[in-house]
């Protein structure tokens, strides 16, 4: 990965009539990174991808690829290639002809053959040249789509939900393979997904979108540790949200009064930009300790009652009902040796390290879509 920007989006907006599919998108993608656009369905992430590909023109703003303004440049003349959600394997062509599609007529025949073989080897489909399009499994279709795009040697590979059609096992396998492929090729990958785990495991950086707006762009670790607001925090992993009041701000620290846990000093989250006296804080379920007796070595503790238990295998989730807090607090405990074992109705204590409390800034009330 270098610091050179391969794609720059400047104030990009896409409007359909009065509907804003995407607005105010500013984004720089670096040469050789694996970037994911993450968000719930309908958040505008696919629109952004299709604007980069050239299938849709922004109604405002500019898209630059490798420093060149792409305004008016049709999809077929852009140095990008795409893996479609449906894979769009040409049903009338066999594997080799599907992969060779974009080269045919532009590159000598011998070179095409060599590159097709190479591309098929790369996606581990060697020898399947003559296989018909309708005789492929889901995973094979995905690989053909990948080979067909990569053979064009694009500057940027765009992937629209490339794994959503595959079953869980295959999906996890492909996540690693695609990540490895991307690193060995050094090409920038831009992937659209609604699956946070997929985005987290594969990407160098993730852009989280809600309601047509790009909320936060960061590495997976930062997104997890320092989400900019409640929406991002809840979308990436699970998060207990508690209201809190800022009593004092000094240096990088906030003194707050959090519901249930009382006073504490936490780190000020630089990503959370909306400041106010009343804020919300987030606590990851796995950052809470659960004990039968009041834990002694925690600065903040809370008493509650188990309202629900869910067994996940590698860990156990408890919902703990606490007085004066609306929603039960979720706690996730690793399943070491069945050391902890509570049942519904048991009275428990929760312990909290202050360092793991995340400042999420002011609670945002309404959706941002109406903003123009």
């Amino acid at each position, binding site marked *: 990965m270098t610091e050179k920007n391969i794609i720059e989006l400047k104030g990009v907006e896409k409007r359909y009539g009065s509907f804003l599919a995407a607005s105010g998108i500013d984004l720089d993608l670096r040469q050789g990174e694996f970037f994911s656009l993450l968000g719930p369905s309908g958040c505008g992430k696919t629109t952004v991808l299709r604007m980069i590909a050239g299938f849709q*023109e922004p109604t405002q703003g500019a898209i630059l690829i490798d420093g060149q303004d792409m305004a*008016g440049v*049709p*999809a*077929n003349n852009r140095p990008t290639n795409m893996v479609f959600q449906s894979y769009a394997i040409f049903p009338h062509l066999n594997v080799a002809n599907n992969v060779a599609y974009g080269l045919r007529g532009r590159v000598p025949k011998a070179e095409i053959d060599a590159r097709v073989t190479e591309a098929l080897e790369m996606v581990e489909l060697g020898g399947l040249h003559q296989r018909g399009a309708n005789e492929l499994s889901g995973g094979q279709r995905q690989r053909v789509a990948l080979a067909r795009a990569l053979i064009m040697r694009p500057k940027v590979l765009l992937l629209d939900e490339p794994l959503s059609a595959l079953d869980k096992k295959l999906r996890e396998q492909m996540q690693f393979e695609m990540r490895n492929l991307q690193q060995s090729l050094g090409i920038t990958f831009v992937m659209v997904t609604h699956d946070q785990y997929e985005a987290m495991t594969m990407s160098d950086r993730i852009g989280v979108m809600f309601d047509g707006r790009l909320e936060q762009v960061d590495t997976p670790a930062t997104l997890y540790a320092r989400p900019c607001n409640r929406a991002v925090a809840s979308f990436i992993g699970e998060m207990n949200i508690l209201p809190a009041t800022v009593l004092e701000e000094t240096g990088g620290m906030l003194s707050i009064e959090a519901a249930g846990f009382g006073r504490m000093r936490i780190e000020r989250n630089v990503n959370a930009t909306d400041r106010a006296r009343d804020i919300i804080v987030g606590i990851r379920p796995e950052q809470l300790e659960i004990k039968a007796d009041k834990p002694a070595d925690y600065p903040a503790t809370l008493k509650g009652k188990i309202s629900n238990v869910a067994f996940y295998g590698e860990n156990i989730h408890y919902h703990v009902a606490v007085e004066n807090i609306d929603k039960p607090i979720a706690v996730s405990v690793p399943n070491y040796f069945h050391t902890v074992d509570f049942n519904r109705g048991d009275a428990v204590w929760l312990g909290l390290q202050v360092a793991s409390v995340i400042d999420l800034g002011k609670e945002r009330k309404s959706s941002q879509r109406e903003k123009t």
Partner: protein
Amino acid sequence: MFKPRSEAARGYALSSPATAYVGFLVAAPLVILITYSFWTQTYVTLDKTPTLGNYRAALSDPLVHHLMLRSIWIAGAVTLATVVLAYPIAYFIAMKARRKTIWLLLITIPFWSSYLLRVFAWKLILGFNGVMNSALLGLGLIDEPLDFLLYNEFAVVLTLAHAWAPFAILPIYVSLQKIDPSLLEAATDLGNSPLQRFLRVTLPLTVPGIIAASLIIFVPTVGDYVTPALVGGSDGKMIANLIQVQFGAANNWPLGATLSLLAMMSVGFVAIVFVIAGRGLGGRIR
């Protein structure tokens, strides 16, 4: 060049050759028809004074009512017979047959011979000492040739049910083809017998195909005048024969135009009622 035009603009651009072509060629006949229907003609002289006389004459004539009703009744019978006969074969091809294309081809080939010749052939089969009667006589099933096979409404219905076969099979086949197999499995899973499953899932889902087939058959049949003339016998005449006479022998284009417009309106009305009823029925099956 890909893009920058809007979706609607491209929709207009692509569909305009067809719509403009049909629009122009439909508008002209309609304008001519409507104009003529307000004129009068005696012998070869055209009186261009606008009048509603043709409409009054046509609407008050019991002959017109009779022929109109008979046309609609015959066209209805033809449509029903064709669709009912065609449905199982479309079902067979879509659901059971292994070589679908071969079957579809087999169904199209007979229609590559001239329609007029096929009608001739039907007369051979249904005729007095035709194939059917000879066979029945030979088998000793009857003593005298049956004469109710040809030259009546039955012959018209049979001939047209044959002629329209591919136009019924194809749309129904297409709608059957589109049914997701998992829907049928779901119905079975929910406890339906094959027959229930057919009545509650397959049939309602093919209603669009049935409606399309029915319209393609019903509408032109009302306007057919060749088949009734050839195999309809003495009581197989339809409204189109009367229209044909006005445009031909009687040389009364204004009355012919009036009758055509009335026929088109009746057909349109029946077709709309049919489509609405069909949709309603399709939606009501639980």
